């Protein structure tokens, strides 16, 4: 009788343990991507962004930008001041992006030659940012609900235990047919991402070269996007990051676009 009870308890314990393990193993692709999307982020951020464009011959072009970003909850405001090349110096760009589904970003540009702030239509998400290998969509936070996600496998990559998740866009005619992302298990950072074109061929590879924990936030500070079809690369580096400094609201106004740095 006693041994039968122990046996029952053991079976229950084993079942419970197996259930927990099963639940852990059954983390879905969607959940992983949601965890990446919801990774704690600073309320505001200031930094110097350098983009180095490298063509197949090794020739480089450098773009330098000072940027301020602030999350207001339902809206994220960003203002960028272009420092180089010299012919775009003092140009500024402001973007307000909204959580509300279907609401387009509001964008303005200040061109020093025109001396006025001009509202512009939102750039197409598939346009390349300043001639780099990053599209506007690559740089933004893509909503997890816009793709169907599938956990392909778990493997070690660059010494980190990673989930490998395939994401297929729900939208027809999207610029990528699918993406595959290597996500560090305990940090929820994408360490590598492959982008496949409409024919299913590998188009670009994003490699994270450096990520840092600053003020308790995991942030990517150096990444490289390689267009393997055109053998063109863009190295994106973020320096002098300042987080949660309570950037005043007036930073995201026409006044500052005109005044510049």
């Amino acid at each position, binding site marked *: 009788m006693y041994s039968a009870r122990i046996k029952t308890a053991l079976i229950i314990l084993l079942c419970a343990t197996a259930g927990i393990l099963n639940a852990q193993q059954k983390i879905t692709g969607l959940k992983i991507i949601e965890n990446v999307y919801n990774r704690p982020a600073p309320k505001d951020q200031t930094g110097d962004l350098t983009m180095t*464009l490298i063509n197949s011959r090794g020739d480089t*072009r*450098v773009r330098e930008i000072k940027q301020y970003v602030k999350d207001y909850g339902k*809206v994220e405001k960003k203002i960028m001041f272009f420092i*180089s*090349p*010299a*012919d775009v*110096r*003092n140009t500024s760009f402001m973007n*307000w992006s909204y959580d509300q589904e279907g609401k*387009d970003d*509001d964008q*303005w540009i200040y061109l*020093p*030659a*025109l*001396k*006025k*702030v*001009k*509202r*512009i*239509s*939102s*750039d*197409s998400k598939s*346009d*390349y940012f*300043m*001639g*780099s290998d990053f599209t506007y969509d690559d740089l933004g936070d893509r909503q997890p609900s816009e793709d169907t996600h599938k956990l392909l496998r778990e493997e070690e990559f660059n010494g980190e235990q990673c989930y490998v998740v395939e994401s297929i866009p729900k939208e027809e005619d999207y610029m990528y047919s699918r993406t595959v992302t290597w996500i560090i298990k305990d940090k929820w950072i994408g360490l590598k991402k492959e982008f496949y074109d409409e024919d299913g061929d590998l188009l670009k590879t994003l490699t994270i070269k450096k990520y840092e924990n600053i003020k308790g936030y995991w942030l990517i500070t150096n990444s490289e996007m390689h267009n393997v079809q055109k053998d*063109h690369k863009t190295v994106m580096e973020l320096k002098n990051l300042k987080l949660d400094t309570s950037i005043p*609201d*007036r930073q995201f*106004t*026409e*006044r500052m676009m005109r*005044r510049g*740095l």
Partner: protein
Amino acid sequence: MKKICKSYILLFLMLVSVSAVYGQSANISGYVRNYTGVLLTGDYNYAIIQNTFNLNFEETKNKVGFKVNPYVYHYQNRETEYGLRQAYLDLYFDTFDLRIGKQQIIWGKADGVFITDVVSPKDLSEFLLRDFDEIRMGITSVKADYYIGNNTFEFVYVPVFTPTRMPDQNSIWYPAPQFSPNAEFDYSQSEVENKLSNSEVFAKFSGLTSAIDFEIMAGYMWDDDPAMHMLRSVDPVTQEAGLTVMPKYHRLGLAGGSFSTTIKGVVLRGESAYYNGKYFSSADPDAAEGVTEKNYVQYLVGLDYTLWGVKVSGQFIQKVILDYDETIVNDQYDNMATILFSKDFLRETLRAELFSYIGLNNSDALIRPKITYDLADGFELLIGANIFTGDNGMFGRFDKNDMAYFKVKYSF
């Protein structure tokens, strides 16, 4: 001339010296440019051979700043031009900015059209062909901006009137005279005296919001273009009719506004102004000095859209003279349109652009195709053309001035 030259050389040296003292905190930028244009009619004469040096020297330190923008235009067969496009001081407060000195002030939402954009006078010495930052002349003024959230109240005081700069009489852009060859000119009233009562004032309230950007403005100014007063006479001896043309500037009041908003990816822009007290030339023999005073309205509707990677922008502009009478030389309704197509290639290093002004009253146009290539960062090659079509009208009158041009520019 030598004195002027010396003074500008001294100015440049002074700026460079100050920059050396200030070290890295000072900001020097500018460009060097060669601009060569050839006429596509007749003997293919050069329309322009110009070398430009443009310098921006600026600094901002906490609550103060300044900017000086000297320029030199060197021509192959014309007198060299020197000037200060801007030279101003800035004072920044929490909710208030003050800018004092020579400055370019640009208002409105229109592109390439001047409706509420009336503060800075225009340099039309090369018609409308100069780059926009070169068409607007700096004007000595005091500009005060008061900020309330995303709204701005701006007040501009201009102590001294500056008229539109017109082409020299020997320029290909000098408009054909509209008077008989025997007409004499009397410039005795073509100056506006430099005194307090002749100042200009402008005010603007503007806002920038998610839904809409807007500006509401008003001004009490001088008309930048003179009215051509005509005095007719009869020689008592020969009994021959004489004509004396007397250019004269008049006061102009105006009120207007502009807006810009986005609807489903399309930017919709509008701008309008009511002008009070404009003098128009009149064919009425009873009109005093051949001019008549009328009010008029000018408005614009514009759309910007990106279609298959091509940026498309169109504007319709109409000018309506109120209380019109048939003797006025100008049309009651003057209609114009502009259209712009532009597309970037090769990672934004190559840009193809086509911009055109279209005069709808006279079926004339200015068509401006151009291709810009960034050979290296900051080093730009540009090839383009200015094609005038039609027989008369604002653009058709320059039908013989079709030109192709080449620009090479290094920005630093």
